[in-house]
């Protein structure tokens, strides 16, 4: 009798452990990564280094918020980087007319881009991969045309580079923007009615429809929000970099998807969250930073990034199967 109870409790403990393991493994991974790096590289735990990490991942992080929303809605936005480029270009081009103008214009651009994607995917119901692949080209081309193909120098005035460089309480201003957008998106996704609707649509659009949720609007909304937040990040990009290349922006696409997927937001839709993306971002940032601290050649860094993405998804799939057991 007693034995039995012991056995059962043991099983219980095992279950609890495994449940934790399968759901929180990313955090565990993060901790492991953190410790190993701080041992491996002396400069990892320095403040300067963390300032770097912040500087180098803010734009990515803010974009990741938008991408999370889109992916939860059972989509992916392959035109994200193109939108980033377009907004940045618009922004820089219009700076002569004053920052308010430039910023509003950039944000409007972002929203319009999101609207285009959203309309084609939500309303016309065209496949999201195709649409965003297409609009990616369109937006890039537009960016090149209005920039006339040349690199644009972001003006060095302080006002603007405040966001980029100025510090507040020892942290770059943009860190606060990053934090803010994570909080805001967290609230929108997990605390607001529309967030709930988005999850419902991502999980089961038919049921969502029966529940009186206008899924096509929700989807459209997700892409518009994405467009908007990309525009915001473009402002930071423009203020951080001395010079805007359309090519620069295009390098963000892969990273942003990696970050979101790494966090555990599933491409199958309806699963995930901002906190997960935050963890994903942290892992990604630390890995990237670690690789350069350990002076791993740039080209191998790329390969490693790719491997990480695949492993993350593979792991997530394996996880999904296991989670059903515990």
């Amino acid at each position, binding site marked *: 009798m007693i034995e039995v109870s012991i056995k059962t409790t043991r099983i219980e403990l095992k279950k609890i452990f495994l449940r934790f393991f399968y759901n929180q493994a990313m955090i565990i991974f993060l901790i492991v990564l953190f410790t190993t790096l701080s041992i491996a590289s002396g400069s990892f735990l320095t403040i300067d280094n963390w300032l770097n990490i912040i500087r180098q991942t803010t734009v990515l992080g803010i974009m990741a918020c938008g991408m999370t929303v889109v992916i939860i809605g059972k989509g*992916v936005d392959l035109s994200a980087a193109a939108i980033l480029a377009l907004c940045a270009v618009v922004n820089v081009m219009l700076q002569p007319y004053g920052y308010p103008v430039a910023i509003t214009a950039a944000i409007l651009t972002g929203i319009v881009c999101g609207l285009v994607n959203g309309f*084609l995917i939500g309303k*016309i*119901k*065209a*496949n999201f*991969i*195709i*649409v965003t*692949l*297409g*609009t990616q*080209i*369109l937006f*890039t*081309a*537009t960016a*090149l*045309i209005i920039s*006339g*193909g040349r690199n644009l120098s972001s003006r060095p005035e302080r006002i603007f580079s405040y966001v980029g460089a100025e510090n507040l309480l020892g942290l770059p201003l943009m860190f606060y923007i990053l934090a803010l957008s994570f909080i805001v998106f967290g609230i929108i996704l997990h605390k607001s009615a529309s967030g709930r609707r988005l999850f419902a649509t991502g999980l089961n659009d038919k049921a969502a429809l029966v529940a009186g949720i206008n899924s096509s609007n929700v989807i459209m909304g997700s892409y518009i929000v994405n467009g908007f937040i990309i525009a915001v990040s473009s402002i930071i990009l423009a203020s951080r970099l001395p010079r805007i290349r359309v090519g620069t922006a295009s390098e963000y696409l*892969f990273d942003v*998807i990696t970050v979101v*997927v790494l966090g555990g937001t599933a*491409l199958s839709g309806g699963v995930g969250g901002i906190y997960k993306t935050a963890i994903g971002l942290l892992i990604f940032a630390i890995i990237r930073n670690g690789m350069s601290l350990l002076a791993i*050649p*740039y*080209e*191998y*860094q*790329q*390969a*490693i*990034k*790719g*491997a990480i*993405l*695949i492993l993350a*998804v*593979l792991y997530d*799939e394996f996880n999904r199967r296991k989670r059903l057991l515990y």
Partner: protein
Amino acid sequence: MNKLWQKTINFIIAQKLLFIIILMIMVLSIADRSFLTIRSILSIFDHVIINGVMAVGMTILLISGSFDLSVGGVMAFTGVVTFLLQPYGLFISTLCGLLAGTFVGVLNGLLVVKGRINAFIVTLGTMIIFRGLGLGLSDSTPIKGRIPSFQLLGRGSILGIPNSVVILIIIYVLGWYVLKYTKFGRDDYAIGGNVLSARLAGININLNTFFYFVFCSFTAALAGLLYCSRVNTASAIFGPGIELYIIAAAVLGGTSLFGGKGGVIGTIQGVLILGMLERVMVIFNVNVNYQTLSRGLVILAVVVTDALVSRRERILLVRREV
């Protein structure tokens, strides 16, 4: 009534590419007297050979309802491996190159079939991985070809016909034959068309899908060899963004991204159209700023049209149940 309507529409749809090609040829030869010479016609084939070869594999993969973003990476990777190994002789290096490229396909296939990961993520990942590996192996410096005879592959000619033409013809006839006359090819349509009944008909979905990925990478590897032999250099940064172009060519050729329909004959037409578009740019001395846009517009139109057409067909499918 419906039948007739369908037939006429099908006819028009079937002819659209030819129609466009003819239109382009007309415009080009009006604008440029020198266009209608054998050499300049042949040179078009010269230009599309890389995309053309890859498009065959991509078409077969697309028909099965899957797709592959890593072809560009595979192409570059193959080249790097081949040229790195050239000191060990033409045969060995070429063979290893091909194997290396095809291996990526094996990886893709396994991850998609066994790992059950979305093909998009898998191939996006492998694309990055193998471009990176290529850069690493080559110290991100282009590698010069050591064996002159290797250049003949892409630059030489047989009885006055450039190899590129010969190779294109061979691989397209092969592709056409496989798709039409082998079980491997026919199962492709079955899987893309209706997985369930394909499975019931005793088709091994996983195995087939796996091999479609392998074949796709194989053609990419072949293209890699051609590329390097044409420029007698190998670099991991070759063919930036080429994958989208290939997919666009296939889709333009009537292969649906949703699987189940299409064929290589359409694909070659698609490839030629995109190839001739480049020629248009040159002959009309297009302002550079609008070249990207024109390319973009074409590709955008292609993919959106495909999306809309297949949506239309899905609706028809539903109607049929009533």
